[in-house]
């Protein structure tokens, strides 16, 4: 990020316009169109409404603008969904757990011809996935009930997919009454879409939040009759 393009959301958003008074100080906004500036303003305003003391910096690239938010103590999946729907130009959101920042990628108006990216094989086959998760579950044999093994398996597979070929995460699974509480540590970065894949497992995955101070991602898995009685865990259609 360019050091000269750091703004405070409180000072920027409250003004009627975010067009800089002295363009040489805010050069990253200089080449932007009105609509792009408005998109940044809307996103910044939304983040500010969630966390007051957030600071942001921007990096303008030919195809996209990257907005980096720092100073957020925590963020929940509901917050991320709100930010995601605040503007149609948002292409992706990335939580940089190690740096304690949220990166929002806003698409610029100039569109280049779209080249379809070939999907790369991650090298994670089903057998490896199952073996690793089964090995992990064996260390939690006393915590996880037999009837809940399938759903906990699905949750762990999801986390392993996020971190495949990256730094391994430390996962703690504890039983809280009928439900399970998960804590994921040592995550480097995670995308909003990846978090959504976890939530897509079902309504029983809830309270997903990331604490930037402790760098811990936590969520609960509720025990329901739905996945116990059903033959197969169904993906929720959104």
């Amino acid at each position, binding site marked *: *990020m360019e050091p000269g393009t750091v703004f405070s959301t409180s000072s920027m958003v409250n003004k009627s316009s975010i067009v800089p008074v002295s363009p040489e100080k805010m050069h990253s906004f200089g080449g932007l169109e009105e609509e792009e500036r408005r998109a940044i303003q809307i996103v910044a305003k939304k983040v500010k409404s969630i966390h007051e003391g957030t600071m942001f910096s921007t990096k303008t690239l030919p195809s996209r603008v990257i907005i980096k938010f720092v100073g957020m103590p925590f963020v929940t999946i509901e917050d991320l969904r709100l930010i995601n729907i605040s503007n149609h130009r948002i292409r992706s959101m990335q939580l940089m757990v190690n740096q304690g920042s949220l990166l929002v990628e806003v698409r610029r108006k100039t569109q280049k011809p779209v080249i379809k990216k070939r999907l790369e094989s991650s090298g994670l086959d089903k057998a490896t996935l199952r073996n690793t998760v089964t090995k992990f579950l064996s260390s939690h044999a006393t915590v996880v009930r037999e009837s809940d093994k399938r759903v906990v398996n699905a949750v762990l597979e999801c986390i*392993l997919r996020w*971190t*495949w*070929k990256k*730094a391994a995460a430390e996962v703690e699974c504890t039983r809280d009454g009928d439900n399970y509480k998960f804590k994921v540590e040592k995550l*480097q970065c995670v995308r909003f879409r990846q978090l959504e894949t976890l939530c897509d497992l079902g309504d029983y995955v809830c309270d997903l939040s990331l604490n930037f101070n402790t760098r811990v991602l936590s969520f609960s898995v509720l025990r329901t009759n739905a996945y116990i009685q059903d033959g197969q865990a169904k993906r929720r259609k959104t």
Partner: protein
Amino acid sequence: MPLLSVSEDSAYHQQCKKRTYANLTDVVQSFSYGENADMLVLELGTPTSGDGIILEVQNVFQLNESMLQTFRIVLDLPHIDHFSNEINFDNNSIVFTIYFGKAESGKNAKCYNWATTVLWNPLLYFAVLCLWNPERYFPLAQW
């Protein structure tokens, strides 16, 4: 907390980790001057896809081919199976994902392993003495 990874935490891998970390730290220190005076090596963790270590070199403000080549040479050791590096221009850092090979044991450990058994054999030294002075040391020569 247990790691969600394919890797196994054995003594051999711990030793490999220490050795790799020490090697890379030494090399990075030798390049810590000028713009790169604040370079640091940080251990990010263990890769999920195998036994290894993830190391990050932070505060890299000047990068050249010789520096990268030196890093690669340092990581081209027998105990390292393969590695990949990723340059992050946003954070001025280089991330090395290093995978270790399996612990060598038995006959295939090293090509010069036969020497250790032979050198420790006292018969070898006796034979050398016999060759040097057969009249004194060779028992049959006295008869």
